[in-house]
C-alpha cells in the first residue's frame, strides 16, 4: 500500500437487495480504483450490476438494497456507512451524477434553471438571483444556445440531447471531483452522442474531473475511457487499459463481447452473439458465473472459486484459463484460437 489515496476506491463491495423472492446479489465483491482526472468505464450487459455499483457509490440503492460487505471511499473518506445527512454533503457537492434517460430525470414542473440553481443554493448557500445567473452560465458552458431563455423553460421544451447537456450542467454545478454517468448517451441519437462525449472530454481536461462511466456500448468506451472494467453477474471479470482490452482480451466474456461488435464482424453471415443467459443472482453459482456460456470452460471452472489473475501490471482477469497452473499444464490453447474454432 502506498500513501497515495485514489479518488474513488471500491473495496470488495457486495450489494444485497431484499425482494419477495429472496436476497438478490447484484454486486458480488468488486474492487475498483479511480484516480483524479481519469475516466473508467464499467461495461456489461443489462443486469450485470453496473448500475447498482454506481448507485451504491451515491448511496442511492433502491428500497431493500444495502451494502452487505466491503467499503466505498472517496479520497480515503468512508462513504458506505454515512448517515442520510452525511450523504447529502457528498451527493451533488463531491460526486455528481448523470442518469440514463434525460426525459424522465428532470422534474417536469420546475424550470430547468431552477433545477440547476437549487443545488447551488443548497450546497454553496448562494441567493437565488446569484444561483440563477450561475445556472445560465453553466448552460452556456454546455453550449446550449440562448441559455438565458432556455433556463426559464421547462424540460418538455428541450430536446433529449439538450436535456442531457443540462443534466451535466446540473451534476457539475457545485464542482464535484467525480462524475458518475450512468448510460449517459443511451437515450440519444448517435449524432448527438458524439457531441456529448466531446463535451465531457473537454470538461475533463478543463477541470480535472474524474468520470465513472457506466455503459454497455463498447464504442463509447473506446471513445472516452482510459481504463475499462468488464462486469458480469455482479463481478468484475476483467480490468484493463482500453488499448490492452481491445487488443488482447484476457477473459472469454470480453472476447465474446468484442466479437459481437458489428465493426469487428468480417464477411457475410449473422453477427456472432454469446449464447445463453447470465446466471440467476438469487443463487449465484459457486464456480465461474460464465461457465455455462464459456466456449473454453474446463471442468474445474464449474465448482472451484475463480482466481483473480494478474495478466500484466495493469490488466487482470477473473478466469481459470489464465491461471499460471492451468496455462503451464498446456491444457488450454491461447484464447484467440478457441474463439476462431468456435464459429
Amino acid at each position, binding site marked *: 500500500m502506498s500513501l497515495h489515496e485514489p479518488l474513488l476506491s471500491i473495496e470488495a463491495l457486495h450489494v444485497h437487495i431484499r425482494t419477495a423472492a429472496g436476497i438478490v446479489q447484484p454486486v458480488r465483491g468488486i474492487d475498483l480504483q479511480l484516480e483524479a482526472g481519469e475516466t473508467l468505464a464499467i461495461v456489461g450487459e443489462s443486469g450485470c450490476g453496473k448500475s447498482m455499483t454506481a448507485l451504491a457509490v*451515491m448511496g*442511492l440503492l433502491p428500497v431493500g438494497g444495502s451494502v452487505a460487505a466491503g467499503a466505498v471511499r472517496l479520497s480515503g473518506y468512508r462513504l458506505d456507512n454515512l448517515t*442520510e445527512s452525511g*450523504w*447529502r*454533503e*457528498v*451527493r*451533488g*457537492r463531491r460526486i*455528481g*451524477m448523470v*442518469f440514463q*434517460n434525460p426525459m*424522465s*430525470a*428532470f*422534474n*417536469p*414542473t*420546475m*424550470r430547468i434553471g431552477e433545477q440547476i440553481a*437549487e*443545488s447551488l443554493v*443548497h*450546497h454553496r448557500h448562494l441567493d437565488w438571483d446569484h444561483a440563477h445567473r450561475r445556472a445560465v452560465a453553466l448552460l452556456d458552458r454546455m453550449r446550449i444556445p440562448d441559455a438565458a431563455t432556455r433556463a426559464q*423553460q*421547462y424540460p*418538455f*421544451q428541450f430536446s433529449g440531447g439538450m436535456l442531457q447537456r443540462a*443534466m451535466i450542467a*446540473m*451534476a457539475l454545478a457545485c464542482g464535484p471531483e467525480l462524475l458518475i454517468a450512468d448510460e449517459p448517451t443511451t437515450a440519444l441519437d448517435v449524432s448527438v452522442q458524439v457531441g456529448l462525449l466531446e463535451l465531457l472530454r473537454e470538461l475533463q481536461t478543463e477541470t480535472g474531473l474524474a468520470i465513472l462511466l457506466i455503459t454497455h456500448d463498447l464504442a463509447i468506451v473506446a471513445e472516452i475511457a482510459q481504463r475499462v472494467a468488464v462486469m458480469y453477474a455482479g463481478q468484475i471479470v476483467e480490468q484493463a487499459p482500453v488499448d490492452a482490452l481491445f487488443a488482447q482480451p484476457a477473459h472469454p466474456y470480453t472476447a465474446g463481447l468484442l466479437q459481437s461488435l458489428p465493426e469487428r464482424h468480417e464477411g457475410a453471415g449473422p453477427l456472432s452473439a454469446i449464447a445463453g443467459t447470465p446466471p440467476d443472482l438469487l443463487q449465484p453459482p459457486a464456480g465461474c458465473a460464465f461457465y455455462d456460456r464459456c466456449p473454453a470452460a474446463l471442468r474445474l471452472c464449474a465448482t472451484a472459486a475463480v482466481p483473480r489473475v494478474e495478466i500484466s501490471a495493469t490488466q487482470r482477469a477473473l478466469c481459470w484459463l489464465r491461471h499460471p497452473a492451468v496455462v503451464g499444464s498446456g491444457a488450454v490453447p491461447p484464447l484467440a484460437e478457441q474463439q476462431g474454432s468456435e464459429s
Partner: protein
Amino acid sequence: MTGFLLRRLLSSLITIWFIATATFFVMHAVPGDPLSNEKAVNPEIRRHLEARYGLDQPVLTQYGIFLRNMATGDFGISFTQQNRRVNDIIREHFPVSALLGVVALVIATLGALLFGALSAQFRDRWPDRTIMLSVIFAISVPSFVLAALAQWGILSLNKAAGFTVLPVAGWGSWRHLIVPAVVLGLGTMAYMTRLMRSSMLEVAQADYLRTARAKGLGSLRIFVFHHMRNALLPVVTVLGPAIAAVTTGGFVVELIFSIPGLGRYFVQAVQQLDYTVIMGTTVFYGAFLVLMVMLVDILYGLIDPRIRVGK
C-alpha cells in the same frame, strides 16, 4: 392562453345550452304537470290556468320562450309558491349552499392532501392501514347515514358536556356549519385521499426524484417541490367532479341538518313538478358546475407548465 380560455368558454356555453334543453324535454316527458296537484280541477279552470302559464302552447313554442327567458337570466315564477320568482329563490338560498359547499370542499382537499401524503409516507405501516380502512368506510357509508351518526355524536357530546357545544341542526354561525361541512366533504375527502396516496407512491418511483436526491438536496425541499408538487396534478383534475359531488350531496345534508340552502327547494320542486323552479335551479347548478370545472382547468394549467406553456 387567451385562445384556450375562449375555446373553453364556448364549449361551456354549449354544455349549458345542452343541459337546459335536456332538462326542458325531460320535464315535459314526465307524466303529470304542476297543475295536476290541484284537487278536482274543473276543466274550465284548468284550461284558464294552462293559458295563464302558457302550457297550452305547442312544446316547441314553450321551448323557444324558455330559451329566450333563460338567455336574459329570467327563470320565471314558481308554480307552487305564491308570488316567488325563481331568481329570488336562488339569490336567497344559493349563498347558503355555496358556503357549505366551499367549506366542505376545502376540508376535503386539505384532509386528502394530508392523509394521502401521510399514508404514502408510511406505506404498509399502521398509519397507512388506519387511513385506508377509514377511507373505505367513508366511501361506502352514504352521507345521510353519516349525517345521522354525526347528529347522534353531537347529542352525546352535548349531554356529556352539559351545555350545547355544537348545535344539532340549524343555521347561523360557524358552529352550525362545521359538522355538516365535514359530513358533506367526507366521501370526497376519502376518494381524494386514495388518489393522493397512489399519486405520491407513483412519484416516489420517478426518475426525477432520484435526480433530486442525487443532488443532495434537503428532504423538505425534495418533498415539497419535487414530490408533492408533481403528485398534486392528478388530484387537481378530480376537483371538478369533487365540486359536483359536494354540490349534489348538499341536497341531502341540507335537509337533515335543516339548512336553508337551495337543495331543499330543488327536492321540493321535483316532488311537486314545479317546472320553473326545477329548470331554473338545474340550469343554474349546471352553469355553476361548468364554471367550476373551467376554473379547475385553469388551476391545472397554473400547476402544470406542459398545459400552460405552448411548445
